[in-house]
């Protein structure tokens, strides 16, 4: 197990290197001179040349890449062009908010998805199954920004139960653990949980049906195990795959929540990406993408390790 973990961690190094190359290349693939967004339109060519040397744009791409990489490794992602603040700072604050939202949505989606999936798979083709499967299909197919807007209309505008946007009272962008802040989390978290809920439910349903059709279930019943004990075996057999699916989903939640964060004005990474794209803030965009990609890699690593711990058939 330990050797496998080390090996698996080492495998992430080349992946991370590739990610950073892509992130770096973004700046240079993007059309136009990166300096144009900084310089005033009437800047002299002399000033342009000085800045070019200052930013290191006169050197080769390879040299630039390693200079950039060296700074990134020291935790310096550069300076935002639009706000003039450190990208590291901006990203880390947004990451905190997004993590909070993603964590709640993951727990919610995974719990409901497993519940629906197990019920549907265990009582397959019963009315319960039909109901749970319908919920799952709804979850997978409903456009979540639309659902977000509908939820806002119903629960914020109509009923006034929950605030419609922001991450805290008075437009506060910093998360705190109290009731006030928790209220702001409810609608975006539900909206966000719907897709993973549907995907997990469908995966788990198929898994459970598949496991129940295996001969060992008959073997378990032949030993006199009751429904409950058989169910425990099914859960343990389904767990590794369900977790793997959830890991991937959580990765999407961490990075792919742009639409939801914009709908709810949630000050997370998705919102930040959105701002960075529209303001052509390349360092910010670069830094955010790099951080999100790192999350994805680390998350996959964790899921892999967890799966190995849970499923003895994966080679240790």
């Amino acid at each position: 197990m330990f050797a496998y973990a080390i090996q698996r961690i080492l495998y992430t190094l080349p992946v991370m290197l590739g990610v950073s190359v892509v992130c770096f290349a973004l700046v240079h693939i993007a059309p136009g001179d990166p300096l144009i967004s900084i310089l005033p339109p009437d800047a002299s060519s002399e000033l342009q040349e000085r800045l070019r040397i200052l930013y290191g744009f006169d050197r080769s791409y390879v040299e630039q890449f390693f200079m950039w990489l060296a700074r990134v490794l020291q935790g310096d992602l550069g300076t935002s062009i639009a706000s003039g603040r450190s990208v590291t700072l901006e990203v880390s604050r947004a990451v905190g908010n997004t993590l909070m939202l993603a964590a709640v949505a993951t727990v919610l989606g995974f719990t409901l998805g497993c519940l629906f999936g197990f019920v549907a798979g265990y009582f397959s083709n019963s009315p319960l199954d039909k109901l749970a499967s319908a919920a799952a299909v709804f979850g997978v197919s409903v456009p979540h920004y639309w659902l977000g807007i509908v939820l806002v209309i119903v629960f914020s505008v109509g009923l006034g139960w929950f605030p419609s946007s922001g991450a805290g009272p008075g437009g506060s962008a910093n998360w705190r653990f109290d009731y006030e802040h928790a209220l702001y989390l409810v609608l975006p978290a539900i909206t966000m949980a719907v897709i993973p809920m549907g995907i997990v439910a469908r995966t788990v349903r198929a898994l459970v049906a598949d496991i129940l059709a295996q001969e060992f279930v008959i073997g378990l019943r032949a030993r006199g195990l009751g429904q409950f004990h058989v169910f425990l075996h099914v859960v343990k057999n389904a767990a590794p795959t369900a977790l793997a699916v959830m890991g991937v989903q959580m990765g999407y939640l961490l990075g792919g929540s742009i639409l939801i964060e914009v709908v709810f004005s949630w000050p997370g990474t998705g919102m930040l990406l959105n701002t960075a794209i529209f303001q052509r803030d390349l360092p910010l965009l670069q830094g955010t993408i790099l951080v999100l990609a790192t999350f994805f890699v680390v998350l996959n690593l964790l899921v892999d390790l967890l799966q190995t711990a849970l499923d003895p058939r994966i080679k240790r």
Partner: protein
Amino acid sequence: MRAVMRLNPEDRSKMGGRIVAGGQDVTRMSRRRLNRFRGAEAAMIFQEPLLALDPVYTIGMQIVETIRVHERISRADAWARALDLFERVQIPSPERRLNAYPHELSGGMRQRAMIALALACWPQLLLADEPTTALDASVQIQVLLLLRQLQRDLGLSIIFVTHDIGAAVEVADRIAVMYAGRIVEEASARDLINTPRHPYTIGLLKSRTHDAMVKEHKLDTIPGAPPDLANLPEGCAFAPRCYLAQDACRRGVPDLQQLEGGRTVRCRRIDRTAPELRSAAAQ
């Protein structure tokens, strides 16, 4: 075999008649009573232990779980019994093997573990569903001998289903030959081998490979193919392939007839099968 434990899906199978085990009718047991019966009074060995064991639990965990479902006993005591069982089924270094997952054992070892699991609650009845089919020949005989020995040591009753009549002879006191879902002949192992009376049994014994090893000697076979079980022929199911079949055989299923020596045969032409075997023995 699975019907004895009522393991077939209830909503998709029809059950009639009675299944009596230890004086109890299995078909009329409540769900709760059935769970006590399964594992504790009657246990089952499957054909392919790799499929019949839960792949994500160690063998030891599965044995302990089975014991604790049926008896109020501590985990440590259950584990000690599992160890004892593993020694009984002659698994080397049992401690280590208890902690192994099913896929980590060899085929023969797995079947021994399966037997240990079946014996976990000291059942009186052991149902063995082709337990040696998936094993290679040298391991087969070891498992057969082990079953035989356990049967003697523990006073077990074993119902052993097999396609291999050689295996049946090795383990059985009594043999019942089945064709197309019906018992066609039942006798003590010795009688059945020496003086088979049903044409199917005769054909089966003649088609063993022993004689065919002699040069210029063709392997005897039974012509035709087994019938479609969902669409059995009227009358004796074996009639279309039987060299003794008459018109009467194709009308109505023959009854089981009692013969002397406590044997039964389901055939209308047994008057012709007795001399037949004499010529077969002469060959």
